[in-house]
Every structure is written in C-alpha cells, then in structure tokens.
C-alpha cells in the first residue's frame, strides 16, 4: 500500500502523502485553487485556523465515509483523507464566506496603505483585491492604538494588526524566551509586551517577515522607500550565528541597501535555505549589514513575473521589447472592480484636453 492518498480539489485530483493538510495539497496544485492564508505559516507549528480566510467546503469526506462535512472547514488545519473532495473557488458558500471574512478583517484595519511600509507586499491588500468588495458597510469608529516601540529594531502599529498570532508563534519557536503576546480579549485583544519590555533576541527580527500586514515594521527601513521602487537581489554572507543561514534578499536602489529580509517563496513564506531548513535570519544580518560590501551578491531575485516588483524592469527578460497584453503580464484577466465613469463625470474619454481653450475649469469636465 502506498502512502500517497488521492484528494480532489476543485475537480483537480492530486496525490499527496497522508497527513497533508488540505491547504498544502491545494498549494501543490497552485494557482487560484490555493486558499488565501493570513494566519497559517507552514514553518510555524501550531499556526493557522484563526483568520478563517482559508475556509473550504468538503463535499465528500473520504472514500470510506462519503458524507460531506456540515460546516466549512479551515483547510490549513484539516488533514486530507483518501478520496476526499474539496471545493474551494467552485463553491459559492466558500466564496461568500471569504468575502465575509475579508470584510471582518478590514473592519478595524486602517486604510493607511499610502503611508504603510507593507504596501505592495501586503497579504491583506491581496486578499482585499481578490475577495473583498468595494465600499464599506460599517460606519463606526475603528479601534485605535498608539504605535509602540518594542525593542531597538521593531515598531508595532497595533492598528494594522489582524491578530494572526504568527509573531507569537515565531517568538515561541525561534527564540529562547517569548516576551510579547496577546493582552486582553475580543475586540480589545492586542499584541504587546508585558510591561513595556524590549524584544532583543537574536532572531526576533523574523517577526517582521512573518507579519502579513504592516503591524510590525523594521525601524531601520521605516518610511525610507516604497518596496516597489527597490530591487530585490539575492545575497549571502558567512554569518557567525550558527542558527542563521546567512542567505538573504537585499532590497536595493542603486548601490544602496535599504532593507534586508529573508528570502520568501511564492506563498510569501520564508523559503527553505540551502541547508534544508527554513531560512530564518538573525538580527545582525537583518539590521546591521546595510552595505553592499557586507554581502556576496548572487544576482536578481527570482520574483514572479506577475509581481508588481518585477515591473521595475530590473530583470533582463523584461527588457526585451515585446508587446504584452495586461492579462499576460499579470497572469490573469484583469477584474474590472469599478468603472470610474460610473461615479465621476470628470475626464470623459470623448473630451480631449487639447479641445479646452485656456486654463481648464471644473465646468469643462461636465
């Protein structure tokens, strides 16, 4: 008997080892089938199950017990069974539930993307684009907190936090002692240290990498650069810390290193390093080594061609003159979320600016 079992997700059948979660199986298929994740992190034990964005419908439990599961299940914490049939984007219930969860997550999330360091690589932005809907139905004040310095390198913007608990698991599993955690409960639950402690462990900087939103920010990088203006470059150095893999991604503009992060895979998680372990990096690599001379440059990072970062044309295969349709560039048909002319009379396409004599007046655009 082979250890592999068959599971069907959105009518695509795949064989996976027993004990795999539905989410990991869906990621093997890839594409739009893979449910979005905000709290699950494959390298952190115990993570997942909290954000509820990865809910899927199990329409057939297994070959032995074909009953469907009564509720939507969190795919990150549900194991596959032989012959299981799962519906992700093909289920209306799932799509509706994800829409709901996205709305809940954005309920108290400030819309400060224009000043947020995470913008451009934010999982919540992606989620909102994929599963959210335009407009808001809430009219109440958001919960607010003051930004808090936790340690010499990290600043916490609790307003943006979506309570994924990833940073708590990171501190628990990568460092010797966890000094931050969840205080209070319900809506008032927040990440903090007790009381006003400083996070100083060698590996605590990794909480910035695991944060899906801009709640935990790198103080050496804050407000210096938008991520899409910087170029990611893979580099390494011989780090003296035995637990640090020393393989990083430099975010450069010109010769200047603005930011150092761990290398990430297509799911936004820390990639497996050459030593076969997750490539967590130490604080020294992350915060102290900001000169190109500190690093051995390997070359441009292999970023998905569809990422907004690769639109900066640093990657040579984009240099070749070629005409691409928008759909080819972003890898899917663009979704028309809103037609601007539905809400605005300004700049009607039939009226060209050159037809206006003299300085334009608001009446010209009516």
């Amino acid at each position, binding site marked *: 008997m082979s250890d592999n079992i068959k599971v069907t997700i959105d009518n695509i059948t795949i064989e996976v080892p027993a004990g795999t979660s539905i989410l990991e199986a869906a990621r093997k298929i890839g594409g739009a089938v893979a449910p979005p994740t905000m709290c699950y992190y494959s390298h952190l034990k115990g993570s997942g199950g909290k954000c*509820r964005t990865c809910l899927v419908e199990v329409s057939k439990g297994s070959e032995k017990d074909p009953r469907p599961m009564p509720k939507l299940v969190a795919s990150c914490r549900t194991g596959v069974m032989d012959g299981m049939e799962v519906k992700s984007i093909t289920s209306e219930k799932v799509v509706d539930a994800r829409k709901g969860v996205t709305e809940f997550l954005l309920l108290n999330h400030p819309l400060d993307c224009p000043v947020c360091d995470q913008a451009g690589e934010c999982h919540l932005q992606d989620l909102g684009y994929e599963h959210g809907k335009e407009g808001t139905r809430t009219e109440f004040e958001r919960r607010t907190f003051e930004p808090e310095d936790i340690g010499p390198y990290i600043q916490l913007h609790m307003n943006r936090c979506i309570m994924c608990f990833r940073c708590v698991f990171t501190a628990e599993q990568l460092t010797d002692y966890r000094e931050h955690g969840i205080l209070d409960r*319900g809506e008032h639950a927040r990440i903090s240290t007790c009381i006003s402690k400083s996070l100083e462990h060698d590996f605590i900087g990794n909480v910035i990498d695991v944060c899906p939103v801009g709640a935990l920010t790198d103080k050496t990088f804050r407000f210096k650069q938008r991520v899409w203006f910087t170029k990611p470059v893979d580099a390494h150095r011989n780090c003296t810390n035995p637990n640090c893999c020393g393989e990083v991604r430099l975010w450069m503009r010109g010769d200047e290193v603005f930011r150092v992060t761990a290398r990430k895979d297509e799911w936004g998680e820390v990639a497996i390093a050459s030593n076969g372990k997750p490539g967590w990096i130490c604080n020294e690599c992350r915060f102290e080594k900001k000169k190109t001379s500190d690093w051995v440059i390997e070359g441009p990072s292999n970023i998905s061609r569809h990422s907004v970062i690769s639109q900066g044309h640093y990657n040579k295969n984009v240099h070749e003159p070629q005409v691409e349709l928008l759909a080819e560039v972003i890898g899917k048909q663009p979704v028309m979320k809103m037609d601007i002319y539905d809400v605005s009379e300004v700049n009607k396409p039939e009226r060209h600016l050159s037809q206006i004599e003299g300085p334009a007046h608001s009446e010209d655009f009516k």
Partner: protein
Amino acid sequence: MKLLLENAHIEGIRYYEAYRKNGGYRAVEKALKMTPDELVEEVKKSGLRGRGGAGFPTGMKWSFLAKPEGVPRHLVVNADESEPGTFKDRYLMEFLPHLFIEGMIVSSFALGSNASYVYIRGEYAWIPDILEQAIAEAKANGWLGKNIQGSGFDCEIYVHRGAGAYICGEETALIESLEGKRGNPRIKPPFPAIQGVWMRPTVVNNVETIAAVVPIINMGGEEYGKIGVGRSTGTKLMSACGNLKRPGVYEIPFDLSVEEFIFGDEWCQGIANGKKLKACIPGGSSVPILPANLLLKTAKGETRYMNYESLSDGGFQTGSMLGSGGFIVLDEDQCVVRHTMSLARFYKHESCGQCSPCREGTGWMYRILKKIEYGQGTMADIDLLWDIQRRIEGNTICPLGDAAAWPVAAAIRHFRDEFEWHITHPEESQARNYGLAHYADPLEVVA
C-alpha cells in the same frame, strides 16, 4: 419525580453526616464492585445526554475516550456556568456538594481518572470553599484519596478557580485555562477525548451530567432510561428567570409542557404583575428566542414540551433548543431590540479575539443594534445585521460565534416588525416600548 434534588430540602444535607444518612455514597459502593466498562455501559443504557447545552450522549462521549497504555486520563468537570440565565449548577454545588462529589468519584472510576478537576467559574467565589470542604469530608471518610474503600482505586479531586471568562466554558478553552494558559479555544481536531489536558485523554462534562450519574448507578441505567420521553431521559434542572412570579431552579420531568411549566402552580406560577407572555429564551442566552405563540405550540400546532426534541421541533425557523436550561421569560413590557442588544454586548465582551469573524463581527453587531435601539437605525441596518450573523455562524473556531449569531438571527426572524418600528418611530421608541408585539401574526420567514 425528582432524582437530583430529592433530598435538597433536608437540613444539613450539605454536610457529610446528613448526606450519608440519607443514602449518600451508595452509588460509589455499588460502582466499585463493578468494572469501569460496565459503568460506561450503564451510562450508555441510560441514554443520559450532556446537560451543558449541546445535549451530546454522555455514554458515547465516555466510550470515545482514548486509552493508550501508560498515559493518565482525566475527568474535568465544567462548572464554568457563565451562560446568562443559567444558574442550575450553582444550586447543585451549593446545596448538594456531596451529590456532585459522589458523581465525580463514580465517573472518575468509570473513566480511570486518578486526578479529576473541577473548573469553577471565578464569580462563584464562595462555592469552591463549599466543594473543598465536601472533598475534605469525603476524604476523611475514605471516599477519596488512596485505595478508596479498599478497592485499590486512587482518586483526587482538585478545584480550580477560573478568572471570570465566558469563553472558558468552552471545553478546549477550559482545558487551556486549566493548564494555566490564556483561555483560547483549541482548534479541533484533535478532540479532548484524544488530547485534552496536558495532551492526555480527557472527558469534559457538565456538573449536572456528573450529578446525574449517581441516580443512574443507584437505579440502573435501564431504569433511568425509562424515565422521560424518547431520547430525552431522566430529569433536567431548569433555572427559570425573567418576568416570572416564581423564578428559581426546578427539576422537571421531560414530559412537562412549556405552558404548564410557565403557568402551573407547582412551577413558575405565571407571569409577574399580571402581564402577558411575550417571548422566551428556553435554554440560556445562546439559543434562539421564541415568541409566545411558537413557544407554547409548535408550528404544526402541537403542544410543546420541555425536552430536547420538542423544543427544537421546527429547527431554527420555528423552534429553539433546550440548551443548558436557562429559561428566560420576557413579558409584554420588554423590548426585544434592547434585549438583543444587551446579549450582543455580552458576546462582544466575551469573545476571545482569536478568530476574525467572531472578534470583529460581535462588536459590529452590537454597535448596529445600539444604533437601532437608540433610534438612529435605518432599514438597511436590519439586513446588514442579518448578513453579519449569517457570516459569523459556522465560520468560527468554537461555538461562541454561533451563540452570538443565533439570538440576533432569531430576534430578527420573529420580531422584525419591532426592529422596523424602532427605525420608523425613532422618538416614540425612546419613550415607550413596542409593547405586545404582533407575535401571533403568521410568521414572516426571513431566508
């Protein structure tokens, strides 16, 4: 017929002497002569269902307990009775602590638990003392500790005080809290029967369920199973409160009709101050509210009885649940919108903040309800509320999300006209209540 509260009126029953004189600890004597498997079989035969709310068959739960070699097992009793409207366990523990302890010893023996825990609600500050005294008395008389009554079975009972969180009544959150951690529900599976306290197999039962094991062993599972109606066997403690002439804790047979329970002379004696019955929550704040016409008769026109099946007849469209037995009665002067708002506030306050639909949704629902209650709502708010509760229900880690969504859903389903009246008459609604709702009208079913 009384099985649990039979001796509750006896002077000094709280203490060992009087309890023993009135037939106490006979169940332990009997149980120690049987094997644990036989005991589980007896409980299975009795058809006892969990009294904490969900009504899961206790015998089944016990038989699911994993029994790996060399790993201790535990019995944890959920005395974190925080559901608004429910206070039956408090009565039981306060006045009949030895009955409860006796049930725990028998259950611990049946499950092979050498260390059993009572997780008691923090607000019940005086009850741990009562229990600890009863435990000390039982120990002094050889019913607890090492080698109980020469049977070779060791058992200790520890009373653990909670810190006042509703969420810790959820079994996995209770286990986390018992372990000394933050009371966040765990993600299931694994279920506590496989990995519970300290990752050991654990059974979590309600206080009343454990107490009901005593009459089951005394009279035999089959005999117990004959009492009651259908799959609701035995008796149930109901804590009646609200606008009743005689609120309190009652032990009811399952063939009692709801009408008899509210208006009967032996029971609650009707609505206080000669008012009319408007609505009722039959099983603690989490279950759907029912208007009077649907409470006394089911949608098919049959009489509704106080048991698991009859109260849930018609599903959530026209029925409710027996739940934990917190029977809250509202008279014609009560405002359903305000009532729903205060429940929503409770769930907002008690949400643990772990999963997003519950953390964000409960607060949102409360704010919308507050807006409607204070005359600033719009018709779209009612539909929005419906949409929010629909997206919370079933999408959360633990049942608190459902518990927060159901009362709001039921209030809109049955009392939509009252919500609309609040919106169309913002000023009038501040001055007076909607009064006796048109609850007898044919139902407008909101899909």
